[in-house]
């Protein structure tokens, strides 16, 4: 262990992970995970199943050992602390409420393990139950509760012990869609009111984006990107994030020209230019270009413009507030376009109609090959099209 890793993190940091790695036999579940969560921050970890997000959460809770790395909670090294001595609390996907205890005893569980004053426990349980609107359900059995109420009990049971950080493992995935949305805003309000840090694992993008202050995108046991939701959405840093997040179009090609703040890239179907940024890639280098589906526009065929791409409409999906168009290029690639409203009446979109697509070079994100992770493990393009659902 070098000296640098022994330095305690600054006081405003609630949780700090340094170089966390976890191997299950030959399988590498986590590798070099560094993460720092500030006091009162809501951080969501997002990624496909098997990316290591739940393992990471369980390591922080102390339910899983780590192969290497260190954990700091409010400046204290908790790497070697056993699970029951850590002041982290986990909220489980399946709630994990004790079926042999009523709601009151479930919530009081963590308070009654050591020496305790019965009256004080009762008062504290009542207080927390009011906070999560469970006041009148305290004497119910767990089996008599609805899914949303169970989740409230699970949260109350964790909060009552006054943890220093709350860990949540897909806490809303067992609820139906309608309730999930309501619980999202409730959870966010609760978190802000308590000023408590939340580390929230989910595979649901809208859940992560709507609640979190910062989002971690994980893949294959590594952190791909860590930042505010807007940044993750508009400025994906890696090929994987671009594929996983939102509804992005990705074009691979070679840089043929660099001039006037733009780079010009020869792709399979078109020549695309993009804002080059501070350190433009050199001529001849391979890059991937990412364009959000809602930045793509269409215009009549024949009008010449920058970044124009001819494609044939192959399908459309009306989602209410917007329409998703699927188009096919001459080279067989798929392009998605999201429009806030359907085409004007004069130009109704019909399947197999040829269209000319364009977008601004400023909306084109350039990804360099050195930050493109192992391509063989990337999810298929069609898996992540639904924007705004």
């Amino acid at each position, binding site marked *: 262990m070098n000296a640098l890793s022994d330095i305690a993190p600054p006081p405003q940091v609630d949780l700090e992970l340094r170089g966390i790695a976890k191997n299950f036999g030959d399988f590498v579940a986590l590798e070099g995970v560094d993460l720092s969560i500030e006091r009162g921050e809501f951080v969501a970890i997002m990624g496909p199943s098997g990316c290591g997000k739940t393992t990471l959460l369980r390591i922080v809770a102390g*339910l899983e050992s780590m192969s290497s790395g260190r954990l700091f909670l409010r400046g204290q090294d908790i790497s070697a602390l056993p699970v029951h001595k850590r002041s982290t609390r986990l909220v489980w996907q399946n709630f994990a409420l004790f079926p*042999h205890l009523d709601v009151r005893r479930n919530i009081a569980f963590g308070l009654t393990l050591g020496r305790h004053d019965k009256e004080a426990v009762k008062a504290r349980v009542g207080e927390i139950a009011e906070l999560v609107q469970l006041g009148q359900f305290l004497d119910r059995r767990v*089996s008599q509760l609805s899914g949303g109420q169970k989740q409230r009990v699970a949260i109350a049971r964790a909060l009552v012990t006054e943890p220093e950080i709350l860990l949540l493992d897909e806490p809303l995935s067992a609820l139906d869609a309608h309730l999930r949305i309501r619980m999202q805003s409730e959870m966010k309000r609760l978190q802000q009111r308590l000023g408590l840090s939340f580390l929230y694992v989910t595979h649901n993008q809208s859940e992560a984006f709507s609640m979190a202050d910062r989002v971690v995108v994980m893949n294959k046991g590594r952190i791909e990107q860590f930042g505010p939701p807007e940044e993750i959405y508009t400025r994906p840093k890696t090929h994987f994030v671009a594929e996983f997040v939102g509804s992005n179009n990705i074009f691979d090609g070679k840089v043929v020209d660099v001039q006037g703040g733009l780079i010009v890239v020869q792709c399979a179907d078109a020549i695309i230019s993009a804002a080059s940024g501070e350190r433009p890639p050199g001529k001849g280098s391979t890059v991937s270009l990412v364009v959000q589906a809602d930045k793509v526009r269409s215009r009549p065929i024949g009008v010449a413009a920058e970044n124009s791409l001819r494609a044939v409409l192959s399908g459309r999906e009306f989602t209410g507030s917007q329409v998703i168009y699927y188009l096919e290029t001459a080279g067989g690639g798929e392009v998605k376009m999201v429009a806030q409203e359907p085409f004007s009446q004069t130009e109704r979109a019909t399947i197999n109609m040829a269209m000319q697509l364009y977008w601004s070079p400023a909306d084109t994100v350039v990804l360099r090959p050195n930050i493109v992770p192992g391509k063989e493990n990337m999810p298929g393009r069609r898996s992540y099209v639904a924007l705004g659902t």
Partner: protein
Amino acid sequence: MVSASARRPLAAGVLEAANSGFSPMKVLGIGIPLVYSLTFFAAPLLFLVVLGFWLVENFQVVPAFSLENYLDIAQHMFAQSNYALAIAQSLWLSLSTAFFAVLLCYPMVLAIVYVAPRSRHRLLLMLAVAPFWSSYVLRLFSWQILLANKGIINSGLAWAGFENLQFNLLYTQIATRIGLIHYLAPILIVVLYVTAANIDRDLIQAARDLGATRWQAFRRVILPMSRTGLLVSASFAAIVSFGDVLAGSLLGGGVGNSVLGSVPLFSTMIMTEYASSTNLPRTSALAMILVLVMVLMLAGGAALAERSKVDAG
């Protein structure tokens, strides 16, 4: 009923009958177990009940409806044969055996479920159940050889230099309990395994996450959630022990010394009385009392289990 169905269209009535009535599979599914239990359980039991009211005249069994057997047994409850004491002795033996059997098997099951890796569960369970495939009588004779005053255990101790450490085990109630527990353990282990394996692991981890030590997680989650299984296996062990004759006669020597004094077990008493008197009706009446006590034990166990189920929600 009739008027209600008559008002409905015929087709709807037919459909309903097909859904709620007697489909061939349903008849088969309910019929087979019903016939089985009627033939091999209800009928013999009924025969025993009826026989208990019959009489013996001139060494001949005569059908009758008489309470004479029961009245005679009642007279001997606290005198001569002292049936009440024998029942008390049997209850003491069966309940203590059940207690020690569960006390032995539960930790074994916990070790299999919570200590051994999941891939080894089946093997360990097979090993635990293996003694079940050998004959009960054979096992009791083996215990005789082991437990006898000059048996393997005592000779082994003497050979190892512990001449002063000799146990007088054979023909005591302890030997009876050993034989019974050895017989019961495989079944109890299976019942308790199912109970323990069904406890959601997340609950134990949730308890630990909330600050419980291993012991507290056991005390506050595993143990209360095992309650039904513990009660079911304990009442099973008690009932089997209460009716068993072989362990008591082969290892306990028929008359067991216990806190109650030298009193035979009730089951042994029924056997010896029949052997000496061949009075089948009176023996049946005694057996009915044995069955009655068993039913009471079962009801007691079920009531406790039901209460724990309500507690558990």
